[in-house]
């Protein structure tokens, strides 16, 4: 398979797109079919074959432009003639290597490419074979001064391959790889020449030294540009994935504004994962219970002989969630995330009611549904957030005004620290709510050590909750919501 293509597939994998071997083979077949000559066509073809979702398509679009913008766009000439549609294209790509003749233009022995498993990610040793021969030691000074962009790009690509630049993962590795590349280019010799020229202490020597310094910085610039371009392809998404992993376990209370923006795609992804996990059938077959009426009707045409048996089914409950959020100062940040996840889950949880309170309970459904999320949150915090927290009042309001929202299908999800300013916790009413609902799940952003300390009434509420969990990171949130949805499995 084409090395250019396998490397590109590796870049896609690093970026988090799952590309299987079959897809890699399909990509090679597609490449054979469309060839390199039409860049737009190639891009769309690879998108159709390699990207399996809209997100992967976006990823592919970005990577394709980055990857094929570099020197490697130069087509091996032979491939173009293969662009015709050939009936035997299938058989060609199945086992044998259709591209082996195309490799000669690179001046490399083709044995390195013939591994049948090259679709599985290229690996590290991909390039060691061809380069060892180094035709002639590069005259770096001449190269740098010639201003020949193609030759420079070639030299950079070769040195880059030897220095394994494609292994780059983090932006902080850029200087290291630039240095490795200079070593591979043979800059050491250049340095020696430079020292020698300086030691001469003649005018001519100084002039030569200046030229050498100039050449060195040209090489350095080019190497850096090359490494940075490779980082965009191979490293950026890897380090982003790493950052995202870190974010999952950061306390939501400690997030900065810029972190918030980063969280949004993470949360959208998490919501999607949750939705996919719980997207089971709502109907479950009740094995062994015959639906007599429907069986008779279905088999009327067969003289009543029951060829086709129909079993009784029962429907499972759809998730119904009533969320009650404390939006007073300390908890408000967490509320934002919980609601963000819940509303990202909208297609899964159609039955969702949200109430917010500080001093009294407010139905915020309308705001959240009609306004963009951030605007809705700002409005809620502005209108509801500035009172002294009164949990007792909130539960009283709920049972008086919105009594009908809670039934035996409902999960009541409470997010708050239970700090009641020493007011009446309205235990009786809370008990009634808990008895009526399917489950009551309380998420507390405070560390368990401080539960019940000071004015916190949390421990009083605890016995009536189905579960009371510490929830301060996105990972916690995911866990909690997973638990909520599981009850409707």
């Amino acid at each position, binding site marked *: 398979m084409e090395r250019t293509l396998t490397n590109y597939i590796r870049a896609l994998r690093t970026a988090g797109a*799952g590309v*299987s071997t*079959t*897809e890699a083979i*399909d990509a090679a*077949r*597609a490449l054979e*079919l*469309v060839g390199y000559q039409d860049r*737009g*066509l190639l891009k*769309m*073809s690879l*998108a*159709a*074959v390699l*990207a*399996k*979702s*809209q997100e*992967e*398509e976006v990823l592919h679009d970005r990577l394709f432009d980055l990857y094929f913008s570099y020197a490697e766009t130069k087509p091996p000439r032979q491939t173009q003639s293969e662009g015709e*549609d050939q009936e035997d*294209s*299938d058989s060609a790509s199945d086992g044998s290597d259709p591209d082996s003749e195309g490799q000669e233009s690179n001046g490399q022995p083709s044995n390195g490419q013939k591994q049948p498993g090259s679709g599985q990610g290229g690996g590290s040793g991909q390039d060691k074979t061809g380069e060892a021969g180094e035709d002639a030691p590069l005259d770096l000074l001449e190269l740098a001064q010639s201003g020949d962009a193609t030759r420079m790009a070639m030299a950079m690509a070769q040195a880059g391959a030897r220095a394994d630049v494609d292994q780059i993962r983090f932006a902080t590795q850029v200087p290291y790889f630039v240095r490795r590349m200079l070593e591979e280019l043979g800059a050491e010799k250049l340095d020696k020449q430079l020292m020698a020229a300086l030691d001469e202490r003649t005018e001519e020597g100084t002039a030569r030294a200046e030229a050498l310094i100039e050449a060195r910085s040209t090489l350095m610039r080019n190497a850096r540009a090359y490494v940075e371009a490779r980082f965009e392809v191979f490293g950026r998404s890897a380090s982003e994935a790493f950052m995202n992993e870190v974010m999952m376990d950061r306390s939501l209370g400690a997030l900065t504004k810029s972190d918030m923006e980063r969280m949004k795609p993470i949360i959208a992804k998490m919501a*999607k994962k949750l*939705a*996919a996990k719980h*997207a*089971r*059938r709502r*109907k479950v077959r009740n094995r062994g219970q015959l639906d007599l009426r429907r069986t008779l009707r279905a*088999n009327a*045409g*067969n*003289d009543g*002989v029951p*060829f*086709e048996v129909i079993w009784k089914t029962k429907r499972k409950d759809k998730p119904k969630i009533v969320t009650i959020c404390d939006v007073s100062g300390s908890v408000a940040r967490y509320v934002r995330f919980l609601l963000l996840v819940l509303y990202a889950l909208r*297609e899964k949880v159609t039955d969702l009611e949200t109430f917010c309170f500080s001093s009294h309970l407010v139905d915020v459904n309308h705001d959240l549904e*009609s*306004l*963009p999320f951030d605007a809705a949150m700002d409005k809620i915090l502005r209108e509801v957030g500035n009172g002294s927290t009164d949990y007792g009042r909130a539960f009283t309001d709920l049972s008086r005004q919105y009594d009908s929202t809670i039934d035996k299908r409902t999960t009541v999800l409470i997010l708050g620290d239970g700090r009641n300013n020493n007011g009446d916790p309205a235990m009786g009413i809370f008990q009634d709510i808990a008895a009526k609902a399917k489950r009551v799940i309380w998420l507390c952003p405070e560390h368990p050590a401080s539960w019940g300390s000071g004015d916190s009434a949390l421990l009083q509420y605890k016995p009536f909750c189905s579960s009371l969990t510490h929830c301060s990171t996105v990972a916690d949130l995911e866990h909690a919501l997973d638990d909520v949805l599981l009850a409707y499995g």
Partner: protein
Amino acid sequence: MTHTGLEFAGFESADTVSARLASVGYISTASISTAVYLAHHLRKPILIEGPAGVGKTDLARSLAQSMEFPLLRMQCYEGLDESKALYEWKYGKQLLYTQILKEKIHHLIGDADGLDESFKKLAGFQDLFFSREFLEPRPLLKAMEQAGGSVLLIDEIDKSDEEFEALLLEVLSDYQVTVPEIGTIEAIVPPLVILTSNNTRELGDALKRRCLHLHIDFPNADLEARIVRSRVPDISERLLAQLVAFIQLVRDENIRKLPSISETIDWAKTLLLLHADSLDPVMVRNTLNVILKRQTDIAEVNSQVDQLVRKVLTEQAESA
């Protein structure tokens, strides 16, 4: 490539696909044509995703029409199973068969004496009870049986159960159907398979891997105008430009169910019926329910109709 030739010879390039589709009134984009071209040559199904009403189903219909292949359509829904998708036995006929057999049996083995002899004779007869004669092919099997090729449309695959996806895998990757009592039935000519999904649930990886992926989104103004023109040829250029510009603006509004191409076409037809030659706020208000399907969306846009129409008209005047 000659368009006059009746026989469908294959797609030579992505452009051929576009031309073929255009000849039956489907305005294709480069990515759609590329996907069809690849599907045709790589023999892979296409999985089309995108919002409702952007022409996913229509693509299959137009492809069938342009290739002059029969279109076999399978609408997916919750609870769809193999007896409705692959095949079913013709129970009634099987019953009749056994009754006939009962009546005729003494003619057939009448001259045999003894139980052993009769059984031997019976075993000699072809077992017809589970045979092709009693097999009722459903869309998937039917597609396998089309000698001249076909287009198989599996519509709204996301509505079916996960188990059903597994059932499809054999059809999608090997173009064959296995009937336990008979054996494996291979496709005479592999059909061009098109699956559509509205993304109401995440499809399984196994299914996705077997398909080419194509995402069709709302078209840009230019493409949308071309599509409407091909479907509603009587509309005046002026009105067409205005209504497309209006729809594009509406898609930027904060509404739940965005109007799609089918709504644009319906609206164009409606306005034509009302003999409109230019948008005006009153008429737009009266016909909003053609493009918007939710009461809250209608209310939202209704309050801005004047402003939007004015914007459309001034933009058109400027560009003219």
